[in-house]
């Protein structure tokens, strides 16, 4: 469950992007939030992903008010969130495989489980042949897919996809849609920020447009 209450966002130079938004997204739903360039989609994704603080208002994730949580409690909420960033965010010293799985290793997940999850996931995203490559040798689309793999390998309860589909090949988009459906079935809330997939294969429960500093339902 995600709830925004009188939620406002400001850019680093103090420009108001989103003002007094109230929104409720139930568990297991798929939501699209779109709008023009630089209107605040990425900032909203980062705020819901607990990377940035809102200017005003409250954010509730999985029934907890974020402003009242300490660092350790925030970590446990982070644990339930998978995020695909707009920019490709990786560690250059590691190969692609390590980049996908290292948060799980640090969380002391069993090696056997990690290997099994990786084995099942990689063919869906056509990443199995480049898994040992260094990240700086890969294309933008491959890195986006790797980000997606990293975001879902821990089976998150909230999945945030920021500007994800625009670089992805149509055939792989279809496979991703299947993966998203599977995640929905286990109760994952999925929010897509930016452009939707080309053939609109995902059945969004709700679509919102960021317009005039507010969220309008379409």
């Amino acid at each position, binding site marked *: 469950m995600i709830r925004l209450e009188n939620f406002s966002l400001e850019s680093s130079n103090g420009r108001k992007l989103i003002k007094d938004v109230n929104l409720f997204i139930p568990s297991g739903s798929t939501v699209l939030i779109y709008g023009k360039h630089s209107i605040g989609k990425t900032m909203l994704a980062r705020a819901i992903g607990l990377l940035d603080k809102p200017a005003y208002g409250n954010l509730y994730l999985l029934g907890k008010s974020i402003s009242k949580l300490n660092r350790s409690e*925030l970590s446990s*909420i982070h644990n339930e969130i998978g995020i695909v960033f707009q920019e490709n965010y990786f560690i250059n*010293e590691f190969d692609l495989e390590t980049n996908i799985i290292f*948060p799980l290793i640090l*969380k002391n997940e069993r090696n056997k489980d990690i290997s099994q999850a990786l084995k099942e996931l990689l063919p869906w995203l056509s990443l199995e042949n480049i898994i040992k490559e260094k990240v700086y040798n890969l294309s933008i689309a491959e890195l986006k897919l790797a980000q997606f793999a990293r975001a879902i390998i821990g089976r998150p309860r909230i999945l945030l996809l920021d500007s994800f589909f625009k670089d992805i090949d149509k055939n792989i988009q279809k496979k991703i849609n299947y993966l998203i459906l599977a995640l929905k079935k286990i109760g994952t809330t999925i929010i897509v920020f930016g452009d939707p997939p080309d053939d609109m294969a995902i059945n969004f429960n709700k679509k919102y447009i960021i317009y005039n500093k507010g969220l309008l339902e379409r």
Partner: protein
Amino acid sequence: MNFLKIKFFPNKIVDYLYFLISNTLFLVLLISLIQYRIDEKNKNENMSEIMLFIPKIGDDFEEKRDLIFNQLSANSSIISVNKLEDREIKKLLSDFLINVKLSDEVIPEVYDVQVKQSKQFNFALINNKITKIIRGALIKELRYKKTNTVILFFFSFSVLISIVLLNNFFLIKIYLSKIKNYINISRYFGVNDSIIIRNQNISFFFLLNLVFLTSYPIIKILLKSYFNLFLLDDFSKIYMVIYFIYNFIFLFVLCIQCKMYMKKLNVL
């Protein structure tokens, strides 16, 4: 998948090597300095030595020398007598006799005499007896000039400690900025800060152990070969104390720096 690298050594190997080399160097300097100071202190506490000089004169020199030793053995204050090697004597004399070549025949036999500290030693009486046996034989207490290196030691020690602390402070600072992405991504995917701090502590604890293991033989060789100092009996105790203090301070500073750096990384 290299789990150890992912968990404990996420940065480039060259950064860990720099840490190892710089800390080994500092540790060698630190221990050598402390060892040198303790050695000096011990010397200052034992500032006098009793020496026996027997000139090699006469055909019956060896018999007369034995007579001298018989005389000395009657004295209960004397514990033992150790002969100095000719080359040691030559070395001691070379400070006074510059550019003079000494023949072995003219060098007297010199003995280091160990006596009981508590008993008063009567030099006049013994000298009187032994000069009657060999003319020129002499037993004498040599007093050394005290060296006062305390201020120099504390100054060098303070400078060295400051350099070690500053070097490690900036080293950790640079290290943390290099693993910024690693820390950020770990946190974004739910890894607790305490796990990251614990893992970094384990990795640096391991590196510090390597530093102490490699430093030990280096210090031993260096002190023996270059400074002609022998390791003190309690050297291992001193080494262990420094090991614990060094580890504690470094890991404590590492923890604080990690926490402060993570606090700065994101607002939430």
